[in-house]
């Protein structure tokens, strides 16, 4: 023991780190901040460490070459002892890190912790979030499978929409004219050197400021933040109702971080690594590319925006969003911290969370995409739809199936959701309306006038006319009835 002490003193005389570390560990924090609500930041930092360690371990094997990356990932998955587990740890660690960073940010926002004097801590946090998302995107590219390839295509298409320098931006992003070897190399450099280096430096600075400025006190309704008095009030609070950071507050961080690490390991062991999916061969076009979980919301937004709004949205919305986040502590740097007195903050947070969840949910089952195999691979038009049908109507059912109508329209619950389900279409559209819709399209439907012969249209519409409930007549044109009434007496 005495020897250890001597050894410690020998090092500390040279390093001179003992005193500042002790001061940091024992600095008083408000009693109420020793809460389970305050554990997300440290967990995010621990996850960053996990990503660095597992990332280095994967880099021992991974080959950042467009020709070999996919093969090296398969070697990791199938041939190296526990290579699959490390890939899974890194992949799930990334998911957890994005989630924990977002939860941390929401908590900081809800607790008003971005207010004076912690504005810069928040701004650094915003950059840390952007870098975390940057890591998630570049990491998805390094998986270099079909999804990564076409995901890069989407990225390049977005970059090309920048006015004036679009083509330049695409070349810079891809490292050349197409998605190929140069693209993977530069994403590797960003994922492994540039972003992690900045992420680590910024995260350390972020933690340093948290320790130096003190942990945000528990928000109390009526306890107003004022620039002139805040520092003295905080100091008084930590003196009167405080405890040493170590071990008073930090033990909960330790427990939570361990739990998060265990959760990552369990997910990795049970659910396994992500991909890689299909080979990155651009000539294999039977693919439906989709981004990873955290970009699904954006994928959904891009299908719902009207075409004319898309480019402005893609280029302006991110800039506005980031500017808003950075400006937040400077616009609302003083005042109430408690969520009891900040209804707008609560409303913003819930609407963002709700919008994000709905869009992510939509992104997982993409109702806007045609089901490319619904006409060929799925079940045919069910017998009950054609059992009592005339030959013409049955011919129409064949046209319906073979002309890929079902890729966008479901019938009997099978088919795409791009257009409306057609099980009851005859009860809402007349024969003339159906013919017009088939021939001219409109409302997101292509016109089939050139691709269907008149007899095919007649057959198709006569089949569609049967799609109504048994006890409900099909929709009919009222003026035709009137015409029929007028004509009939003359015949008699």
């Amino acid at each position: 023991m005495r020897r250890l002490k001597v050894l410690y003193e020998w090092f500390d005389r040279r390093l001179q780190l003992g005193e500042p570390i002790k001061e940091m560990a024992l600095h008083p924090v408000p009693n109420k901040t020793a809460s389970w609500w305050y554990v997300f930041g440290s967990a995010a930092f621990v996850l960053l460490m996990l990503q660095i360690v597992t990332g280095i371990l994967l880099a021992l094997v991974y080959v950042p070459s467009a020709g070999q990356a996919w093969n090296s990932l398969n070697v990791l998955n199938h041939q190296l002892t526990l290579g699959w587990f490390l890939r899974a740890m890194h992949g799930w660690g990334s998911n957890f890190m994005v989630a924990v960073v977002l939860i941390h940010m929401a908590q900081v926002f809800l607790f008003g912790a971005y207010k004076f004097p912690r504005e810069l801590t928040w701004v650094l946090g915003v950059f840390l979030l952007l870098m975390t998302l940057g890591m998630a995107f570049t990491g998805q590219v390094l998986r270099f499978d079909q999804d990564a390839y076409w995901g890069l295509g989407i990225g390049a298409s977005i970059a090309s929409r920048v006015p004036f320098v679009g083509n330049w931006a695409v070349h810079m992003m891809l490292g050349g004219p197409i998605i190929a070897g140069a693209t993977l190399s530069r994403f590797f450099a960003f994922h492994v050197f540039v972003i992690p280096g900045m992420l680590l430096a910024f995260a350390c600075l972020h933690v340093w400021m948290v320790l130096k400025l003190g942990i945000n006190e528990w928000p109390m309704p009526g306890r107003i933040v004022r620039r002139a008095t805040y520092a003295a009030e905080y100091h008084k609070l930590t003196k009167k109702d405080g405890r040493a950071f170590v071990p008073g507050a930090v033990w909960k961080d330790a427990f939570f971080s361990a739990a998060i690490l265990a959760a990552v390991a369990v997910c990795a062991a049970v659910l396994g690594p992500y991909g890689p999916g299909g080979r990155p061969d651009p000539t294999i076009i039977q693919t439906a590319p989709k981004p990873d979980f955290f970009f699904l919301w954006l994928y959904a937004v891009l299908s719902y925006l009207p075409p004319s709004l898309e480019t402005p949205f893609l280029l302006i919305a991110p800039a506005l969003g980031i500017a808003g986040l950075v400006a937040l502590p400077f616009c609302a740097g003083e005042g109430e911290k408690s969520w009891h007195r900040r209804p707008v903050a609560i409303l913003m947070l819930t609407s963002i969370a709700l919008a994000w969840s709905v869009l992510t949910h939509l992104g997982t089952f993409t109702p806007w995409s045609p089901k490319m195999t619904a006409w060929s691979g799925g079940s045919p038009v069910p017998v009950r739809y054609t059992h009592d049908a005339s030959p013409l109507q049955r011919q129409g059912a064949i046209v319906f199936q073979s002309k890929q109508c079902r890729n966008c329209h479901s019938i009997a619950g099978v088919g795409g959701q791009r257009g409306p389900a057609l099980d009851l279409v005859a009860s809402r559209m007349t024969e003339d309306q159906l013919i017009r819709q088939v021939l001219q399209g409109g409302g997101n439907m292509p016109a089939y006038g050139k691709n269907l012969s008149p007899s095919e249209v007649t057959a198709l519409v006569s089949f569609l006319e049967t799609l109504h409930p048994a006890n409900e007549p099909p929709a009919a044109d009222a003026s035709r009835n009137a015409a029929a009434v007028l004509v009939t007496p003359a015949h008699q």
Partner: protein
Amino acid sequence: MSEEVLLEGHDEEETAPVDELAVSRRWLLLKIGAFFNAVVGVAVAVPVVKYLLSPAKPDGAYKSWVSLGSIDSFPVGETRLAKFTNPVGRAWDGETDRVACWVRRIAQEQFQVFAINCAHLGCPVRWFPQSGLFMCPCHGGAYYADGSRASGPPERGLFTYDTKIVDGDLQIDAGQMPTLSNTAQLVQIQNTPGGSPCAG
């Protein structure tokens, strides 16, 4: 071991006599040093920036004529998938230097070659001869047989390559991923009812 005494900054009790001249001389030297660093920094930055920007080339610099094979492999009136190797590539590109495109042979000597990339966000479109449509799996864009926009989020029709026939071979002017910024732009034709945009 514990008795050793290391030099510590605050042990130097004696302060040097204040000498205005000496101090300003040191500051002057530091300023010259900083300036010298700035000059060297700029001199080094120029090649670094040039190196970084080297992939960005003007429109057309990457393009050249590529053969898609004999025109006999494309039946008249049909649309077929064709594959070629990108003319610009590196040894380690693997499969990624391969590119697919849709070839539509309208008449004996008349061809239309469409890029595989959807004009919306670049996903690979698929041809359905039965309904005469190209459909995109990503966000549901659809195009007619002649490449014009049918429905969905794309703002324009499919990107096309310039074609020519040389010694019975179909050639296209290819080399870079077609995007909104490096292909023919949308042209708003004046005086048309509704002013509908066409792919020019």
